[in-house]
């Protein structure tokens, strides 16, 4: 009885809290981390999304404070993880860098976003 009650309570409570669900690909985390400061310039950047993404239509760019592209323009989906986007970087002097990503999840929804990270300061 108590067990059933607990289940019923959990169900009632769960109506007011979030269930695990995704459908659009959102940025889960990144390396360098969102808003972080890294001491040494990274050679590449990796973005992990909440969904598998379409390699043909997903891309990202990195720009410096002056708005110039500093990535190698080789954004691609990781071979071992269909939810991870990788992008090579040119040598980065210290400063603030902005990452802009634009991805399509495998259920065809387009999402995009921006974040920044600092190098060596």
């Amino acid at each position, binding site marked *: 009885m108590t067990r059933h009650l607990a289940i019923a*309570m959990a169900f009632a409570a769960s109506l*007011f*809290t979030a269930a695990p669900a995704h459908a*659009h690909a959102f940025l889960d985390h990144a390396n360098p981390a969102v808003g972080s400061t890294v001491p040494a310039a990274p050679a590449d950047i990796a973005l992990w999304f909440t969904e598998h993404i379409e390699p043909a239509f997903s891309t990202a760019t990195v720009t410096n404070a002056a708005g110039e592209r500093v990535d190698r323009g080789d954004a691609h989906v990781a071979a071992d993880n269909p939810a991870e986007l990788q992008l090579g970087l040119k040598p980065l002097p210290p400063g603030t860098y902005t990452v802009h990503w634009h991805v399509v999840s495998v259920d065809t929804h387009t999402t995009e976003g921006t974040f920044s990270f600092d190098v060596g300061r």
Partner: protein
Amino acid sequence: MDAFIVAIRTLHFAACASLAGVGAFECLIADPALDGSATAADLSRRLNSLAWISLALAVISGLGWLAGVAADMSGQSLGGVFGSGAVGTALMHTRIGEDWRLRSALVVLLALCLAWNRRRGRFAGDVAWIGLALSVLLLASLAWAGHGAADEGTDGTIHLVADLLHLLAAGAWLGGLAPLALLLTAARRDSASGMTAAAATTRRFSLLAVVSVGVLLASGIVNTWYLAGNVPALIGTLYGRLLLLKIALFLAMLTIAAVNRLRLTPRFDGTDAHAALARLRRNALIESGLGLGILAIVGVLGVLPPGLHTEPIWPLPFRLVVSALSTGALVMLLIFAIGFCVCGAVAVAAFAAGWKRPLGAAFIGLIVCVAFGGAPAMPALVAAYPTTFFAPSAPYNASAVDRGAVIYAQNCAACHGADGRGDGPAAAGLPTKPANLVQPHLFAHTPGDLFWWVSHGYGSVMPGFDGVLTPTDRWSVIHFIRARAAGVIASGMGPAVSTIAAAQVPDFAFESGGVQDTLSQVLAEGPALLVLFGADAPIARLQQLGAAQLKLIAAGLPVVAIGVNGASQGAVTNPPYVVGLSAKVAAMLSLFRNDSDGGETELMLDRNGNVRVRWTASGGGLATPETLAADALTVARFSGAAPNHAGHGG
């Protein structure tokens, strides 16, 4: 663009549902019920035409859908995608393209079956069944083009299966309505034998409808759960409200189906069979209309972000805090909720069948359930605002807290006091005393409640900061006051595991052995021990933890040790778990450490970052590695639950 995709999706769903529905009607209903009758030959020709029209529409809309999706994904105009090759890329290199290639093959095979059946001119046995199988696959493969396709793991599988069943049941029922109307039209023309045929088919069809409705309900609940997920998302977002509208249309269809089944079908044997037949035909057409309405909503839902990913605007001035209900009250509430559903079902059935007395009784039951069910819920109702269920637009992390601290000092400290106790310099002259913002009571409110007050003011004294601070800044200051209150709550904790989850440490980035890491990534694996040490760190303790590190990791308890309050990291021998971080993060973490703690404060965090156990060098002493490992097991069990909003009797 969106309007185009919505229209094309609706058309495609309708065409595919119709194909599967015609196939199912032919094989499962008309063939067994009409076997050899005069109506059969005529009907089979009509059904075949209907199938051809549906197939043509499915092909046209399928192409349009792919073009629309290619335009959307590539950011080009609809006209441009054919020339630029984006359609080709979408077809050859994406998941939906893979799905579409498979479906094109199905369409070709299906066309062959339809052509074969047309020549035979009657309900053909085997080939019709093959056609049915193909059209079912064509409809089912749409599940991969929906939201369900995106989930992974067990959840993904459940969602996908629910999507599949939902599509098939909808196809069998909705798609069967037009054939039913055709049959009833034909039956009206040739009197006696037609009437028997109509009666037999209608009975079979309503059985199919009952099964479909059961499947639609069950799979619909699963889908709603995955995509809207909670009450705020259901009633507060466009997505959720359209879903409710869809359910309302579904209930209307259900009521009509019940009228058909309970009131009209029995009359076939009586004297007014002709009138019943006419009404049944009319009802089938009304149901088809409602069904199209449902498909149009489905078309719109497909292009909207699901409810869980948009901010719900809460429409009510109150909300129900389930955790504030006593067990007894919750049981009462459940009983009346179940009673409400039962009375509702009885009311629909009684209405459909035209039973007056049960209908009255069911209505009284509904009123009783609302009245008596409302009473136990009353104490759990608290004030709510449109933004109550908003999720912060800035993450709860050290940089937001750092920014929030500055904003607080500039805008709030005059009234609420530098340390939040409501005793700022301006407080004395105010008619109402500013709220104390470091009490546990703060967590009785959702972050969205605080957002409303900071945006629009509180009472007559506190001003709104709507035009002064950007939304992100308002969230930052909210993160700051919540982090500060969490620190105060945590400082009241001790070496006994706390069941309250209201002392959440903000996320922060740090560097360990040259690698970037964040607290949230550490916590993704389970609990962690956060060690904050000051200038007078007990070196022996850090060494003890260092020696036990492997053992603790095996027990599921990684250690993250950080020097704050002027600790020089070089002073210790720098064991691998001592990490480096920025001054901002150190400032944030000092909210969780008091000067009176002595050289070291140790906090055990649950998966969500809530402080659950706290030891200090000065009071009570620090725990042995064995105790740490044992507590980690207890704390690991708290995982999963979102931080609750303690207080208000919870």
